[in-house]
Every structure is written in C-alpha cells, then in structure tokens.
C-alpha cells in the first residue's frame, strides 16, 4: 500500500462528483481536504458526497450513539468542505448509509458504496487510507479490492499519518523492535515447551520464531514499541497482577454468597462506562480485568465506551469507583496518570437497561 494517490486510468478526467466515505480516523480531515483540492484541480464545479456507513443496525439501542457520532462527523466534514472550497462552487451532500442493514466487512461496504454511487452518478471515490468503519468491523481484506470488484473508481488520499498507523511499511527501527520483541517472545515460548538444553530444540525454535516474527510481528503489535516504556510497563504489570488477583478473590466471595443464598438477591443492570484509556492493549487489559472481577461483565468494548453488565449493586458501585481503571492507567501511563477522578465524578457512568428497557 503506497501513500501515493492511486488512480484508475480513464476515470480521473472529469471527476465532478466525488464520494468520500468518512470514519473517525486521524486522517479524515486530510482526506476531505485532499478530495476538495484534487477535485477542484480537475474541474471547476464539484459535488462532494460525504457518507458515513454504519456497521450496525441503527435501531439497536447500543448503536444509537454510533448514529449520533456519525451525524456529528458528517456535519463537521461538511464544514471542512466549505472551508476548503473557499469561493469555488462546491456542493455538499451528506448521507448515512447502512442504517437498515447489518454491514459486515469490506464486501458489504463496497456494495453499499456501489449502490450509492450508481444512484447519484458518482465518478470517483476518495478513500481515506485509514478508513475503518466502526471498531468492530475490522477490515479483513482491503476495501480497495472490493471497490474494484463493484467497478468503482477510487483514489486514495495521500495523507500524512502518525507513525503508529504505518502498517507493513513502518520505519526501520520500529520494524526491527517489533521483530525483535516478537522473536524473543515466541522463542521463549518454544523453549518453555521444549527443552532449552537440547540443541535440536534450540535450532528449530530459532527457525520457528523467525518465521513467526516475520509473519506476525506487524499484527501482534499494533502500537509502536518503546524501548524504555515497554519493559517498564511489563514490570508495572507484574505489580498489577497480585492486586488483580486480590480483587478477583474478594469479589468472587461476594458473588458466591449471593448465588448460594436461596433467595438469590441479584439486580442485573446494563451500564455504560466511559473509560479514559486508549484503545488497543490498554483497553483490552481493562476490559478483561473488568470481566475477570465477578459481578461485572463487559458486553461491548468497541471504543472507550464500555457496555458493562453488572450482577449485584456492590459490583456496580465498585465499577463506578474505577479502581481497575486507575490501576490500568498506572500500568500503562505511570503513577502520575493514575490519579484521575472516578468515572462517577466525571459523569461518565450511565445505567441503561434495567428500569427503562
């Protein structure tokens, strides 16, 4: 995947109707800017169709906030277009796609865009290289290929993206760090299972670890490894484990009492908690920790908004006090970052379901 604008020959001549699929990425602003700029270079009149494709059915209660976010993104992007267009005559159309069906994977998205393009006579799709519709629907294959399949011309916006999104290419040292870490992790694992003193295991282990690190390093570490921070995090994580175990035992006993009591006084509720951790590994660690402590179960972890099912009130209170969140922040960001207000004080908690559902 190169960063250069990629154009299908023959289509780029009179592109006066552009389709720009938007998603909440760091490069979406640049993509919109590029679409307007390049469109105006080719012709004087421009019609920009901004669309957001929703991966979920819009009427599901948990995806309502997705719809709201999408509308916000659309109105923001429309302003960007007007900003960039200046005095040139640019028409902006916005649309929400996929509200009535469940979109899964690039194929569905490409089909939806194809239908839309046909309806509105779109000439060119300007694609955000980071385009990622919804955090749940990971792009398994490239959407580019699927767009070619439905016969849509597309142009990938040449954006400057932050280093952490450099997939496959990456700069040298970063790539080496990942390979290095992955190699030693898999080699260590191999030797733990095998016999570290037997030469055969040492040789085959090195070979296997080499293959694994070359093929999987870029997938395993979706974030840049920091030569100082990553080992420190590992150490801090080792401190976190006993704390987590203690929490698990404590709340397990509480929940055991509730379940074994014949009257079984449970109060299941769905709650939403907005967390202050970055997505990726910190979010995974937090969500898994929350799930591990009994009485709370993460149902959805699409982004910072966790949908948590709680079984008993005390577990809910514990969740809203945010002890685990603070601990995770300590692990990943250090001691100073751990001292933040509890989710309750921030107003980041919300009980959904239970009474109103």
């Amino acid at each position, binding site marked *: 995947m190169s960063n250069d604008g990629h154009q299908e020959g023959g289509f780029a001549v009179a592109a006066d109707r552009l389709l720009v699929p938007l998603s909440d990425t760091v490069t979406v602003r640049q993509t919109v800017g590029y679409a307007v700029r390049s469109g105006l270079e080719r012709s004087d009149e421009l019609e920009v169709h901004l669309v957001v494709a929703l991966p979920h059915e819009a009427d599901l209660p948990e995806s309502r906030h997705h719809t709201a976010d999408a509308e916000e993104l659309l109105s923001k992007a429309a302003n960007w277009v007007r900003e960039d267009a200046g005095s040139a005559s640019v028409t902006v159309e916005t649309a929400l796609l996929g509200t009535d069906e469940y979109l899964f994977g690039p194929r569905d998205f490409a089909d939806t865009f194809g239908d839309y393009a046909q309806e509105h006579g779109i000439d060119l799709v300007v694609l955000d290289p980071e385009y990622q519709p919804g955090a749940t629907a990971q792009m398994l294959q490239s959407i580019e290929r699927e767009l070619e399949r439905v016969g849509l011309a597309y142009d990938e916006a040449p954006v400057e993206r932050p280093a952490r999104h450099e997939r496959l290419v990456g700069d040298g040292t970063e790539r080496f760090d990942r390979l290095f870490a992955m190699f030693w992790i898999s080699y260590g694992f191999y030797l733990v299972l095998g016999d570290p003193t037997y030469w055969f295991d040492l040789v085959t282990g090195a070979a296997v670890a080499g293959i694994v690190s070359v093929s999987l390093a870029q997938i395993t570490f979706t974030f840049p490894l920091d030569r100082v921070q990553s080992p420190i995090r590992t150490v801090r994580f080792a401190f976190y484990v006993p704390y987590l175990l203690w929490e698990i035992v404590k709340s397990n006993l509480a929940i055991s009492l509730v379940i074994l009591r014949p009257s079984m006084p449970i*109060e299941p509720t769905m709650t939403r908690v907005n967390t202050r951790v970055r997505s990726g590994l910190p979010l995974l660690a937090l969500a*898994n920790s929350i*799930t591990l402590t009994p009485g709370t179960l993460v149902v959805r972890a699409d982004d910072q908004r966790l949908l948590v099912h709680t079984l008993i009130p005390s577990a809910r209170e514990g969740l809203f006090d945010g002890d685990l969140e603070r601990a995770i922040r300590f692990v990943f960001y250090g001691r100073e970052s751990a001292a933040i207000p509890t989710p309750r004080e921030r107003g980041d908690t919300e009980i959904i379901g*239970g009474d109103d559902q």
Partner: protein
Amino acid sequence: MIESLRFWAIIVLVAFGLFFTFVSAVGVLRLPDVYARAHTASQADTLGAGLALAAVAIALGWQHATVYTVLLLFFVFITNPTAAHAIARSAAESGIDPWTTDDTEEGESK
C-alpha cells in the same frame, strides 16, 4: 514440616477450587439469563480452575511439567474472560435482552 505445609496447601487450594467451580455450576444452572450466567461461568470458574491448577503446580514441584501448569494457568486467566466477553457480545448482537428484576413474572427460566 515443609512436606506437611505443602500437603495442606494443596488440600486448601483443591478445596477452594472445587468450591468456586461448584459456585459457577450452581450459577449457570440458577441464574436467569445468559448475561448473568456468563458472570459465574467465566469468573468463578476461572478462579476455581486457577486454584486447582495451582494445586497441581505445587504438587508437581520443581520440574518441567510445572512450567506447563503455570502456562495453562495463564491461558485460562487470559482466555476465559475473553471468551465470556465474546459470548456476551454475540448475545447482545443477536438481540437478547438482559433480564431485569422487573420481568420476574415472565418466568425465571431457572
């Protein structure tokens, strides 16, 4: 002395492991809906399995097989909540409404 300490440690760990697994079994049978069941199924069971595995690790002592047991412990602790989360999410996405105290009359599916 060390031997008897080890012996009793194993007994206690196995006993608690059995207790928590029992809680998880009772929970899975008694609780009203899939979300609530996922709580005990994933957590009480994880702790139960973890304690039992710890007992095995202590019994095996310092040998190669112990490393396996510790690895197993790690796997159980990482994979079980993830699996429970995946199941709960799939339940949410296929539109199963969580049971609440309001709809007791709808029938506690036991």
